[in-house]
C-alpha cells in the first residue's frame, strides 16, 4: 500500500507545524517551508491521480484501522482530480501572493502562512475522506481557518464580515453534524461506503430523509447557495488578497464536491432522484441562484464585490446541474467544479495584481488599465471570457454539458438561466473593460487626435504573480479543448 493519499494531506499539515515554529524563531524560513510542503503535496496529488487512472479506486486505511471503525480515505477519479486541483491552486497561489502578503499583512505573515496551510489541509481532507464524521471535522478545520483569515483583511470592514461568516458558517456546520448524527443513529456507521450499502434498505425512513436534508442544507450554507449566500460577498471581498485568491475558487467548489459526494456515494442516485421528490425544486433553486447572483453582480461598483456575486451565480450552475438527474447534468456540474475553480482563480489573481498596484478596485478606479497592466488585463480578459462561456475557454464546455443536461431533463428554465447569465456576465465584464479601455476619455474625436499616445506608463504586478496568472490563463484554454478527455477519463468512470 502506498501513502500518496495521506501524503497529499499530511504534507501541508506538517508544513503548518514547522511554519508555525519558524515564524516565531526565524521568519526567513517560513515561506520556503510553506512552499515546499505544498510542492510535495502537488507531487503526491499527481502521483495519486496517475495511480487512480491506471489501477482504479484506492482505499487507504488511516493508520491501518479497518473501516467502518477506522477512518478510510477512498480515492476515485473524482476526488483525485479535485485533490490535484486544490493542491495545484494552493501551490500556485502561494507563489503568486508572496508580495501581496508582504504588502497587506507584513507583521503577521507567519500566522497568515500557517492558517493558509491549515485551510488547505481542511479542503484536502474534505475531498479525500471516505468518512462522514471526518468530513465534518475537515469542514470545520477549513472554516475555522478561513474565519481567521478573513479577519486578517481590511481593518475596518473585515472583522464584521468575519463575524457574520462565523455565525452563518457555524449554523451550516451544526446542521451537517446533526444530519450525520441521524445517519449514525439509523445505520450505526459513519463510513460512506458502508452507509451507502444500508440506504437502499431504509428508503422510507423519515429520519433518513431528515438526515439527508440537514446534511445538504449544511453544505449549501457552506457553498453559499442563494439565498444562503449572505455571508460570502463581504467575507471574500474584505479578506486579504492572498487568501481571497484561494478561498474564492476553492471553498465553494469543494463544498459542491461534498454535495456531489453525499448524493452519489452516500445516499445514492436512486434514493436522491427516485425516492425523494426534491430534484425539480432544487433545479429551480439553482435557476434562481443563477439569476439572483447575476443581477446582484450587476449592481456592484466594486470589482471584488462583483466577482463574489458571480461566484454566487456559478454555484447555481453546479447545484442545478447536479440535481438535473441525468448524466449530462452531473457531468456538467463536475466539470464546472474544475473549470469554475480555474477561472475564478484567474480572475482573483488578476484582481490581486490590481489591488497590489492600485489599492482600491472600484470599477471606476480602473481607468487606463489596459495600458498600465497589459499582462494582468490579458489574463483577466481571458478569464472573463471563460465566465461568459466563449469557446475555446473551459467555461463554454461545462456550460455546454449543463445546457444539454437541462434539455434532456426538460428543465428549460434552467437552460434559459444559463444563457441569460452568460449575457449578464458579458455585460458585467464589458462594463469593466470599457472603463479600462476608454477612460480617461480622449479629448479629441478619434481621427487624428490622440490623447492616448502618452496616456499611461506601464506599472505591472510582480513577475511571480504574472507568471502564475499566465499559467492559469493557458490552463483555461487547455482545460477547454481537453474537456472531452477529462470527461472520458475522470468524470464518466466516476459516474458509471
Amino acid at each position, binding site marked *: 500500500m502506498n501513502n500518496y493519499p495521506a501524503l497529499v494531506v499530511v504534507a501541508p499539515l506538517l508544513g503548518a507545524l514547522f511554519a508555525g515554529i519558524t515564524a516565531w524563531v526565524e521568519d526567513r524560513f517560513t515561506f520556503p517551508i510553506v512552499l515546499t510542503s505544498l510542492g510535495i503535496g502537488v507531487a503526491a496529488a499527481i502521483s495519486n491521480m496517475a495511480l487512480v487512472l491506471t489501477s482504479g479506486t484506492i482505499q487507504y486505511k488511516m493508520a491501518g484501522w479497518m473501516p467502518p471503525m477506522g477512518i478510510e480515505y477512498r480515492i476515485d477519479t473524482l476526488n483525485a482530480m479535485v485533490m490535484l486541483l486544490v493542491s495545484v491552486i494552493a501551490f500556485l497561489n502561494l507563489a503568486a501572493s508572496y508580495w501581496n502578503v508582504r504588502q497587506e499583512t507584513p507583521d503577521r505573515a507567519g500566522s497568515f502562512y500557517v492558517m493558509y496551510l491549515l485551510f488547505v489541509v481542511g479542503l484536502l481532507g474534505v475531498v479525500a475522506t471516505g468518512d462522514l464524521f471526518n468530513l465534518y471535522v475537515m469542514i470545520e478545520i477549513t472554516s475555522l481557518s478561513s474565519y481567521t483569515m478573513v479577519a486578517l483583511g481590511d481593518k475596518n470592514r473585515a472583522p464584521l464580515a468575519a463575524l457574520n461568516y462565523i455565525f452563518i458558517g457555524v449554523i451550516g456546520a451544526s446542521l451537517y453534524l446533526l444530519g450525520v448524527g441521524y445517519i449514525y443513529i439509523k445505520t450505526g456507521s459513519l463510513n460512506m461506503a458502508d452507509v451507502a450499502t444500508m440506504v437502499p434498505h431504509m428508503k422510507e425512513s423519515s429520519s433518513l430523509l431528515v438526515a439527508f436534508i440537514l446534511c445538504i442544507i449544511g453544505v449549501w450554507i457552506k457553498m453559499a447557495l442563494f439565498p444562503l449566500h449572505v455571508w460570502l460577498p463581504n467575507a471574500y471581498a474584505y479578506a486579504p488578497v492572498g487568501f481571497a485568491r484561494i478561498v474564492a475558487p476553492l471553498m465553494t467548489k469543494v463544498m459542491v464536491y461534498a454535495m456531489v459526494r453525499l448524493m452519489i456515494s452516500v445516499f445514492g442516485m436512486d434514493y436522491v432522484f427516485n425516492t425523494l421528490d426534491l430534484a425539480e425544486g432544487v433545479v429551480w433553486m439553482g435557476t434562481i441562484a443563477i439569476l439572483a447572483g447575476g443581477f446582484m453582480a450587476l449592481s456592484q461598483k466594486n470589482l471584488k464585490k462583483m466577482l463574489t456575486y458571480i461566484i454566487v451565480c456559478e454555484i447555481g450552475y453546479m447545484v442545478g446541474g447536479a440535481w438535473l438527474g441525468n448524466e449530462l447534468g452531473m457531468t456538467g456540474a463536475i466539470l464546472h467544479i474544475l473549470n469554475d475553480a480555474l477561472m475564478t482563480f484567474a480572475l482573483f489573481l488578476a484582481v490581486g495584481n490590481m489591488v497590489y498596484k492600485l489599492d482600491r478596485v472600484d470599477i471606476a478606479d480602473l481607468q487606463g488599465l489596459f495600458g498600465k497592466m497589459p499582462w494582468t488585463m490579458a489574463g483577466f480578459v481571458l478569464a472573463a471570457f471563460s465566465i461568459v462561456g466563449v*469557446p475555446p475557454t473551459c467555461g463554454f464546455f461545462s456550460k455546454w454539458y449543463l445546457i444539454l443536461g437541462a*434539455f434532456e431533463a426538460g428543465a428549460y428554465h434552467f437552460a434559459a438561466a444559463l444563457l441569460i447569465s452568460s449575457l449578464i456576465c458579458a455585460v458585467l465584464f464589458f462594463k469593466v473593460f*470599457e472603463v479600462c*479601455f476608454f477612460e480617461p476619455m*480622449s479629448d479629441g474625436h*478619434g481621427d*487624428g487626435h490622440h490623447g492616448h499616445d502618452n496616456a499611461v506608463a506601464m506599472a505591472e504586478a510582480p513577475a511571480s504573480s504574472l507568471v502564475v496568472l499566465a499559467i492559469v490563463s493557458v490552463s483555461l484554454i487547455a482545460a477547454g*479543448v481537453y*474537456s472531452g478527455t477529462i470527461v472520458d477519463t475522470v468524470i464518466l468512470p466516476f459516474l458509471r
Partner: protein
Amino acid sequence: MELIPSIKPLLAVLVSLAVIPVLVSSSEKPNVREAWTFVAGTVKFLLVVSMLPAVMGGNQIVLTLFKIAPGADIAFRVDALGMLFALVASSLYIVTSMYSIGYMRGLNEHGQTRFVSFFALAISATIGAAFSANLLTLYLFYEILSLATYPLVAHHQDAKSRISGRRYLTFILGTSIGLVLPAMIWCYHATGTLEFSAAGIFTDQLSKPSATVLLLMFVFGFAKAGIMPFHSWLPAAMVAPTPVSALLHAVAVVKVGVFSIARVITGIFGIEFLASFDLGAIVAGIASVTILVSSGIALSQDEFKRRLAYSTIGQLSYIVLGAALLSPKGVTGGLLHIAMHAFGKITLFFCAGAIFVATGKKYLSQMVGIGYRMPVTMTAFFIGALSIIGLPPTGGFISKWHLVLGTLEGDQMVMLFVLLTSSLLNAAYFMPIFYKAFFCTKEEAMFERKVDEAPMMCVIPLVITALISFALFFAPQPFLDLATLAVNGFIGG
C-alpha cells in the same frame, strides 16, 4: 471524393495568430512590423492556395484537433464553399494590409500595433470559420471573431466609438449567445451530431413548426449577416478606421455571418430537407425585406461609409436569398456573390477611406467635384459601384445573373422582382455620387481642378481590387467553379 488528412488548414489559421507576438515586439519599428504582417498574410494566402488543386479535384482536406464529444469535435474540413470564402478573405487581407499602412500612417493614428495585432487575430478566426468541419468549430471561430473585432471597432477610444462598440457587442454577442448557442445545443440534443453534411443532420426529429423556429434562430442568430432587424450594429461599426470597415465589415466579419447561414442551410438542415418543408420561402422573404428596406435607407445616407454599410446589409441578404432559393443556380449565385460583392465593396470602402485621408471629408454632400481632384480613386469607385449594381463588365454581373436564373429556375417571380428593384435602387444610391464627382459646374465644385490623390499605399490597393472586379467578369472561373462544385455537392450529392 477523397478525404485528405493534412495539417495545412491549421497552419493557415495559425500563421497570423503566431505572428502577433512578433508584431507586438516590433511595435517601435513600424516598418518591420508591417513587413511581418505581409509575410504572414502571404504565407496564409499561399497555404490556402496550395489546398486549391485538391479541393478543385473534388476532394476535401480534413484535420481533427480535439475530441470534445461524439459528433462534436474541434475539426477542420476544407471543402469548395470554405475554400471560396478563404480565398476571398486571405487574398483581400494582403491588399488591406497595404491599404492600412497608407491609411493609418496618413492619418497618424494611435495604437497601430494594437490595430494590426487584432486585425491578424480577426483574419485568423475568419479562416478558421471558413474551414470549420462542424457547427461547434464554426461557433468557436465566430465568437473569437466577434471579440477580436471589438477593439478594432472601438479603436478611437472616444465617446462615439464607445457607444458604437457597445451596440456592436450587444447585437453580435447577444444574438450568438441568445439564439445560436441554444439552437446549436438543440441540434446536438436532437441528433447527437453537429457535423456538416449535404444530407443534413436531421431525419425525422423535427416537425415543421420546430424546424421553422430552429432555422429562424440560426438566421437571426448569426447577426453578422445583418439580417433585419439585427442589422443596426453595422452602420454603427462604421466608426472604426476604414481598413476595418473595408475588410471586416464588407468581407470577413459580415461574410462569416452569411457563410454561417449558408452552412446551416446546406450542411445542418440540408437543401432537400428544407425544400421538403418548404422553408426556403420564409428565409427568402426575410432576406427580401432586408434587401429592399436597406437599399431604401441607403438612398438617404449622406455619410459615405454609412451609405456603403446599408448597401452591404442589402447585398449580404442577396447571398442569404440565393441560398434560400434552394435551386442550383440560385445557391451558386448566392455563394458566388460572397466573392463578387467582396471585391466590389472593398473597393468602395477603400475609395471612401482614400477620400477621407486626402481631404478629411466624410459626407457625400461635401464631395461635389471630387473626381477632378482624385480621378483614379473615383474611376475605381465607378467600377466597384458597377459591380455592386450588377452591371457588365464587372464580376457582380455574374453573380446577379446566376441569382436571377435561380429565381427563374424556381419560378419565384416575386424574388426576381426584388432583385431587379434592388439593382435599380443600388444604381440610384451609387450613381449620383459618381455623377456629382465629375459632372458639375465650376461654381458647384468644392475642390480645385488639380490632381491630388491619397498616398500611394491607399491608391494602389483600390486600383488592384477595382481591376480584379473588372477581371472577374471575364474570368470568374476560380470562384464560379468552386461555387458550382459546392452546389453539386449540396444538391447532387
